[in-house]
Every structure is written in C-alpha cells, then in structure tokens.
C-alpha cells in the first residue's frame, strides 16, 4: 500500500499539442470549419444588397412565417404538455410509467423519415386520427399546416421533458412543505414556488425544441403538401432552390437559417447559465 505518491499533485507533462488535441482540431477543421467557411465565403460573395434582396423575397418570407411560426406553436404546446409529462414521470406513480418514460425518447431514436411516414399515415384523411378529425371538425391535418405543426411537436417533444425532469427531481421538498405550512394551497405552491424554479429549464427545453423544429426536414417534408405560401418550410425551399441550380438563393436562405441556429445556440447557453443559479442553490 503506497498511498503517498497518489496524493502528490503533479502537473500533467504534455508535449504541447498532444495527440488528442491534434485529432480534435484536425477533425473539427475538416468536418465542420471547412464547410462552414465555404458557405460563409459564398454568402459574403453575394454582397449585402443582394443578400438582403434574396433573403426577403416574398417566397422566402412566406416560408419563414411557416417554419418559425409553426415551430413556435409546436414548442409552446410542448412547453405545456412537456411539463405535464415531466411532472407525471417524477411526481406520480401509475401503471405504465416505464413505458411512458421509454416512449419519450422515441422521437430521438426514430429516423425522421419514418416519423414522417407514421404521422402522415395516422393524420391523413383516411388515417386513425385524421379521419375522425376530418369528419368531426372538417379539419385537414396531413398535407396542410396543422400536419407540419404535428410533425414539429413530435420531434421536439423530448427536449422539454428531458430538461425539466432532472430539475424537478432535484427540487427540495422543504420549500414546498414550508409553503404548505404557511397556508398556501397546493395550486399556489405549484404556481409560486415550484414553477419559478422550473422556468429556466422549461424555457431551455422550449428553445432547444424550437431550434430543432425550425431546422427539421425529414418528417415535415412528408406530411406537408409543400405548396409555396401555404405550408412550404424554409429547409424545403433551400432544396428546391438547389434543384433549380439557384445556388446563390440557396446559400442566402441557408445562411439565414445558420444565423438563426447560432443565435439560438447562444440563447440556449444563456438559459443554461441562468438555470445553473437554481441548481447551484440546490447543491
């Protein structure tokens, strides 16, 4: 037993760029920075006036409205129901809980094309849910805007659940007990004590889901009718532009989406920093 040498701190003697570093940076350079750089160069070559003009054609604006608008609807729905699902998983005990827990991850695991096919089958006018919805309310889900929303809801559902769950689990019971002792009703306790602590996690999950829903292609393209000005999403417009060999327009619209992605990454990181304040208190 020689515990002494273990205790002595010795700074790691690393020859400056060690192999892991070399691999990391080479790989990132070739796989990520090179394509990113190519796109930014191509976008810069268009020039600011041309960029603005191509980024704001009526066709493009219409797709932004569909993509960003419906993704917002989808992520708000998931914000509400994701919280309910997370609550059910953490605070309740009921039969089938394990199955529910496993199902939440299905949208992560299921290829988006399969998700699109499944949703189209269920929500088309002769599908399991599409037919009753169509007959009862005259609502057409698949091949219309509601279908796009459903697809976005499907793929972004896990984000809210999985970000809220750990925070809800780590909440201290004492605060709620204190709140009850002071005479608050369960509803008051939930709204004024629990929800504020969950808010960063909820917003973080909503932001992640939103970002994912805006960029989603595989499942949406199958359930959408892809008609311009109706339910055409921005990623599909990029592909259409590429098919028309209009590389400039594709680059410009792609850059708009890239800028949005970078911005949303920033927002998500800030939300995580905000959320750590609460987790720091708990620890």
């Amino acid at each position, binding site marked *: 037993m020689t515990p002494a040498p*273990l205790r002595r701190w010795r700074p*790691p003697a690393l020859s400056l760029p060690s192999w892991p570093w070399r691999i990391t940076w080479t790989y990132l350079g070739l796989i990520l920075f*090179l394509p990113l750089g190519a796109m930014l160069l191509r976008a810069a070559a268009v020039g600011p006036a041309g960029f603005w003009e191509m980024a704001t054609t009526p066709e493009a604006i219409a797709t932004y409205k569909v993509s960003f608008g419906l993704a917002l609807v989808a992520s708000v729905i998931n914000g509400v*129901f994701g919280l309910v699902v997370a609550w059910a998983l953490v*605070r*309740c005990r009921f039969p089938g809980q394990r199955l529910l827990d496993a199902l939440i991850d299905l949208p992560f695991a299921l*290829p988006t094309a399969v998700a699109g096919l499944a949703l189209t089958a269920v929500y088309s006018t002769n599908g*399991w849910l599409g037919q009753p919805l169509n007959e009862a309310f005259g609502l057409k889900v698949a091949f219309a805007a509601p279908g796009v929303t459903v697809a976005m809801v*499907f793929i972004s559902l896990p984000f809210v659940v999985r970000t809220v769950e750990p925070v809800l689990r780590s909440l201290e019971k004492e605060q709620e007990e204190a709140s009850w002792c002071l005479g608050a009703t369960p509803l008051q306790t939930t709204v004024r004590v629990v929800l504020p602590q969950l808010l960063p996690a909820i917003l973080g999950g909503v932001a992640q889901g939103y970002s994912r829903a805006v960029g989603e292609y595989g499942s949406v393209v199958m359930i959408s009718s892809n008609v311009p000005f109706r339910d055409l999403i921005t990623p599909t417009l990029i592909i259409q532009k590429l098919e028309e060999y209009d590389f400039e327009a594709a680059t410009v619209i792609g850059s708009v989406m890239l800028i949005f992605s970078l911005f949303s990454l920033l927002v998500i990181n800030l939300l995580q920093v905000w959320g750590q304040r609460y987790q720091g208190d708990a620890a």
Partner: protein
Amino acid sequence: MTIVVPTLETSRPAPARPSRRQGLDLPAILIPLIACLYVGVVILLPALSVVASAFAKGLGPFLENFQSHELLSALRLTLFATAVAVPCNVIFGLAAATAIARRQFRGKALLLSVIDLPFSISPVVVGLMLVLLYSPSHGLLGGAIESLGWKIIFSWPGIVLATIIVTFPFMAREVIPLLEEEGWEQEEAARTLGATNWQVFWKVTLPSVRWAALYGLILTTARALGEFGAVAVVSGNIEGLTQTLPLFVEDAYKNYQTELAFGAAMVLGGVAIVSLLLKILVEQVLEQDRKASRVEPEG
C-alpha cells in the same frame, strides 16, 4: 441540524416516493392521464400505425419486400455509410473528450458549443454546406476534387461526410461530463507507475468511461442509420445507387409503393426500438456505475 419542520397532515414525509392515498386526489389522477393521452396521440399511435401497416397483409408480403433490389441496395448503402461514419466519430469523440474534459482553459465553453453546433444547424443546411464546398460545378474545392478524379457530391463520400457531420457530437457529449466528474487521480497513478500516454488511455481512461462511450455509440449509430435531410441534399437520390434507406422510405411512399415504404420504415423503426432498449439498459448500468464511483472515495 435539529430544526424540526412541523409537517401538515396532508404533506407526505417521504420525498422520494410521494404516494397520496387519502381522499380523491384529482391532480394525481389527471396529470398522468393527460401525459399518457398526449404521448399516446403524438408518439405511440403513429409508431403503432407503422407496425400495423407494415404487417397489414401478414408476414409473407412483408418479407416479400426484401426481394426489391432498390430496397436492398438502399439498405447496403445505409449500413456502409454508418460503418464508416461511426468509427470515425468514435475516434474523434474519445480524442476530443480526453483533450477537453481534463483541462480548464479560456474558451472551453465556446469549444463545447462549437462541438454542439451540428445539433442546432438544420440538416439541410449541413448538406448545403457540403454542396457549396465539394460540388464540381459550384463548390469551392470542386475544381481540385474533379482534377483528382474524385466524386463527392452525388456519391458515397458525400453521404458518409454528411452522416459524420450530423452525428459527431454525440460521443464527445456523453463522455466529457463523466471524465470531468471522475478527476485525474487514476491517470496520474498510472503515469507515475510508468505507463505511456497510450497505455493510460487504453487501460485507465477508456475502461472508466466504457458505459458512457457505449451510450454515445448507440446514439451515434441510431442517428447515422436514420439521417435524412443532410443526405437528401448531397446524395442526389439516385435509385439503386445513392439512395439510403430513409430516402428510400420517402421515395417509395411518394411513388405510391406504400407497402415497400412501410416495409423499409419497419426495418428502420425496428432498429430504433432495439437501440432504445439498449439505451435504457446502458442507462441503468451507467447509473449504478455513477453511484458506485460516488460512494467509493468517501468510504
């Protein structure tokens, strides 16, 4: 601490397992009910409908789908792209994790965000970036690639590259937190005992993160098999040549070959469910591992 918190008669003492038995507790029934209904309508029903449609005419017609040449070649291409992309990403993920996790440096958070970038970029934009780089007519490096006689866009290297970009963060993301949690001591001990860097990595670091690495591997593989958007842009979707299985699903469905589409979707869905089950299994092992490693240093 000897502060006695007076508990209300309705509050439950055991926080780990709150069971409300007295009286009719509406939220305790409503919340799970709403959660199950929501997940049932949004996730379970669509998933079941794929199974139902795939086997609608029984097992025989389902198996007949696999005589389709297009389906088989799509399956082959998907497996090939995954077989190339996953090992590349495993090497990168482990390298990045060992390089980043154990060190504090300026811009560490930024570097981690950069690694996360493929999660937030639309797959279509990833494909577009590759086209703008390698396309023979419009790509930045198109001329160079063509003079070398290579073909990247509309060919398998493009598909592999697209798959790699979309899936590379998973491995690093799973391994880094575990390495950060565990600390240096074991590696230091190995090094003082005269182990080389390679030996330290192979015999100490890798075994200590094996379950997290396996978890990352499962996520990477599942995503690589199912990647759609990025591959759709770069592959050109040539039937029997550059069509992957997810692209085949869409193509078959749009051409009213519904049975083929559901057959192929069932294959992908089956893989997804297997990966999900494996993931749950590894998660449980990982949780036990974490508990064990947390108890050890104190005891």
